[in-house]
């Protein structure tokens, strides 16, 4: 295969995973373009820089010599326009670049509903390195912050501010925290954790109407739709993210919310592909969302596209869904057959409220087939979850072998017997817990 120039717009997890995987499989010339940063960095870790746990250079997952060693060129520029007819990228400084294959991995930008007063100072999202720097700079003058939006970024922002003893009022539109992802019990555990353990002033079921500013043009208060006025000297808007596709307007690439792609990441234009947060599968893959906006899917998109561009007959076939996050001190993990766990499924639910731990094991009521598992404050073994889902294990199998699933640190308090007891009580059965067995756990090796 002749050497091609593969240009990637965006150096996030999708673009970088792609470049890295392509380098493993080919000698193509690879260029990573970003207007945000000179290097790939871990976006989910930005909060730790603000909190003083990491320094900014520690956000880099690869050493500075990685790029040269692997012959991945980097360019710091903003792509203003793409011209597919001439295969040219036009940059904001007037220069241009020719590509053979173009991969758009431009990621997300913060969603906005254009509230009245959103132009005031000290109103920010928390998506880019720029946002991190702005918030860090203003941090000393913040006494009271309002965080708007019940997504992961909102929780991160609340945690960041609480780490500096800044008062946080957290406004969430939904009446149950994270209830698109979490069932009621889990929601209320998180709510309690935020309020009781970390002093967040959480207000559920509240929508923002507008912002009020002071003479200097900075935000002074947030007004809710019910007319309440909440004083603040900072407002964080975290109501979600949307694909960053503004620069594609004149390119002729078909977009909906995101850049429309097929299962091989091909856009409507030849030799142009899209991966990661900015891409929208059309149609959506079975059991998955049309726009997959997380770290892991971005990585998998990149790796799969690298196979395709290097000539392997490959399409994106995600296996079982998984995700994880951390809400203040509580870790959350989920593994399931499909991205969204249907609320029609039955589940075994165990919780220890004082320890802030719970686990929910989903199964099909009629076949008893294991459909997925989610946990707060408990770590689960990915490899085993994934295999059990593939093997269509029954929930009773899962429950009796629950010790194999436990990935908690050593000496952590066990929970398996209590979960099984719960199921036995409900079903009138008498299942016995099996001891952890490494031969079983690592059997695929």
């Amino acid at each position, binding site marked *: 295969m002749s050497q091609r120039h593969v240009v990637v717009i965006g150096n996030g997890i999708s673009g970088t995973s792609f470049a890295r995987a392509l380098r493993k499989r080919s000698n193509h010339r690879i260029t990573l373009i970003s207007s945000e940063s000179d290097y790939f960095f871990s976006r989910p*870790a930005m909060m730790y820089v603000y*909190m003083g746990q990491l320094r900014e250079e520690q956000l880099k997952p690869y050493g500075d010599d990685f790029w040269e060693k692997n012959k991945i060129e980097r360019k710091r520029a903003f792509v203003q326009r793409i011209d597919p007819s001439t295969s040219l990228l036009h940059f904001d400084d007037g220069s241009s670049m020719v590509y053979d294959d173009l991969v758009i991995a431009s990621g997300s930008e913060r969603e906005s509903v254009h509230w009245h007063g959103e132009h005031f100072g000290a109103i920010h999202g928390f998506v880019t390195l720029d946002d991190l720097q702005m918030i860090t700079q203003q941090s000393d003058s913040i006494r009271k912050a309002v965080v708007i939006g019940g997504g992961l970024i909102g929780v991160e922002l609340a945690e960041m501010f609480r780490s500096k003893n800044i008062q946080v009022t957290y406004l969430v539109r939904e009446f149950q925290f994270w209830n698109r992802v979490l069932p009621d019990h889990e929601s209320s555990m998180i709510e309690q954790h935020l309020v009781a353990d970390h002093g967040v002033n959480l207000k559920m079921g509240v929508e923002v109407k507008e912002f009020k500013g002071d003479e200097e043009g900075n935000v002074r208060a947030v007004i809710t739709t019910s007319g309440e006025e909440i004083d603040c000297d900072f407002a964080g808007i975290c109501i979600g993210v949307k694909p960053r596709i503004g620069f594609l307007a004149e390119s002729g690439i078909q977009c909906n919310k995101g850049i429309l792609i097929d299962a091989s990441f091909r856009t409507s234009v030849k030799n142009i592909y899209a991966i990661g947060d900015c891409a929208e599968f059309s149609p959506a893959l079975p059991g998955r969302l049309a726009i997959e906006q997380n770290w892991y899917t971005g990585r998998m998109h990149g790796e799969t596209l690298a196979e395709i561009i290097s000539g392997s007959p490959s399409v994106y076939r995600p296996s079982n869904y998984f995700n994880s996050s951390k809400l203040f001190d509580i870790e959350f993990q989920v593994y399931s057959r499909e991205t969204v766990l249907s609320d029609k499924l039955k589940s075994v639910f165990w919780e220890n409220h004082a320890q802030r731990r719970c686990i929910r094991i989903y199964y099909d009521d009629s076949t008893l087939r294991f459909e997925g598992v989610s946990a707060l404050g408990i770590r689960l073994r*990915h490899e085993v979850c994934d295999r059990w889902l593939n093997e269509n294990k029954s929930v009773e199998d899962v429950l009796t072998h629950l010790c194999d699933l436990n990935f908690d640190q050593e000496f952590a308090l066990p929970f398996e017997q209590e979960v099984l007891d719960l199921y036995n009580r409900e079903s009138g059965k008498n299942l016995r817990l099996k001891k952890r067995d490494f031969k079983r756990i690592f059997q695929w090796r």
Partner: protein
Amino acid sequence: MRAIRNISLTVFFAALLLFLSSLFLSSYRLSDQVIAERFSVMYTASGKSYYEILRPQLEPMVNVEYHSSFGFISDYSAIIKKYNEPLIAAGNWDEVIKDDQLVMITKHSSSGWLADHAVYVSTFCFLGMLLGGILYFLVTGPANEYRRRAVWFSSLSNRGVAGIVLGSGLILFYIILYFFPAYLSPWMLLADPLRHWFTDKGEADQWFLYGWMYCMAMLVMGIRMLIKWKGNRYQTFRTVSVMFFQLCFAFIIPEILSALNQPAVDVKHIWPLHYNYFDGARIDQMYAFGGIGITLFWWGIALFLIGVPLFTYFYGKRWYCSWICGCGGLAETAGDPFRHLSDKSQKAWKIERWMIYSVLVFVSVMTLLVVVAWYSGKDEVMGISSGFIKMIYGFLIGSIFSGVVGTGFYPLMGNRVWCRFGCPLAAYMGIIQRFKSRFRITTNGGQCISCGNCSASCEMGIDVRWYAQRGQNIVRASCVGCGICSSVCPRGVLKLENAPEAGRINNDPILIGREGVKMNTDLIK
């Protein structure tokens, strides 16, 4: 709460200030009685009594009042030197005063307020530092939870002024302790009441003092660790374990053994970390104690030959480094605020491997020479003086590396400088851990988000993220199994575990998440 915090800090610093200034509060007067006490039963090789030799020499000093230890120590040393110099020049080694007893002479010559009130001063200093420190962490603990995360904001823990001051202070302390201990004699006076607890006959020398200070540091900072990781049972258990082993095995039990006229042995102190384990004089001494001495001597050998490989095979070297070892114990408690300062670069890793295995070779050769010398009864082995090599090792590695650099550099290079670059026992266990052990840090499928908290908090300078983000288990000779990487991971990706060897090293990992084509990872550097 705020008031209690301020009170505890005030008490701590008042005690610390008094402790530090106590070094300058005594006056010194050499009396005939002290000289007699020290020297009347010591004889030169030619059979002359030290007392008879030194009494006339020391005459100009006797009953002269010195207001600082500096003048006293320098005059005394000058007199000994003046006496010894011509003898050494003439090669008349038999007459030379080999042991000038400077530390004890200085200590026993001190007088004044401090010496008169040692019990009260020491009670205030030690209790003040202990209780003040512990109370401070108790009351600030939960409320201050987040500020403790801010390691890169604190001048103490980000190599700021406070860190450099603390580091310099520690380095100075170790230099004085190892090479000029007489200046610490006021502190030994303060430690005397404690030593008398164990035995009326005994008194504190610099090593008792050091052992006690070591215990205090580990107690206060260990409690800080326990508060910091409240709810995390791995961190709790292991911290309690190192505190227990330091307090009981390194400090109390040897004192009790010594009070019972038994060999004062720290039974968990293993060669080659215990580098003079096989000193001829030590072997003779252990055998002289009879049954218990011989048993303890062979216990150490069995530990090294059987215990270490066996435990390291089953649990990795963490069974020692993070659960038992005194050096590790100090690093994990007092050194915890500095763990992120360890260098994560490839270059540091390379230097680490060269240094630590060189030390292992050095200590092995040195020990071999010493044992052969002892067996043959001659100092020289194949033309090399075993005593000289031993002295070089003791100076370079035993004092400078493990003490001055190993602890003094906590605020500059992280808390495991010695363990990482110098400890020969860690080197030995590292080889076993890397090639024949059940221990690994398992990476959880494809859950890593490359945040880097693991690498940042690795005290051994392992770039944990490099493995985790490619789904690879972490199997490294240097890992001491402190488990902090796992504890700080925000996505539950890392788990320290002891599991069968099969599949432990997965050099060609597949990140779980999709059905893809297997690729050749060798192409990526």
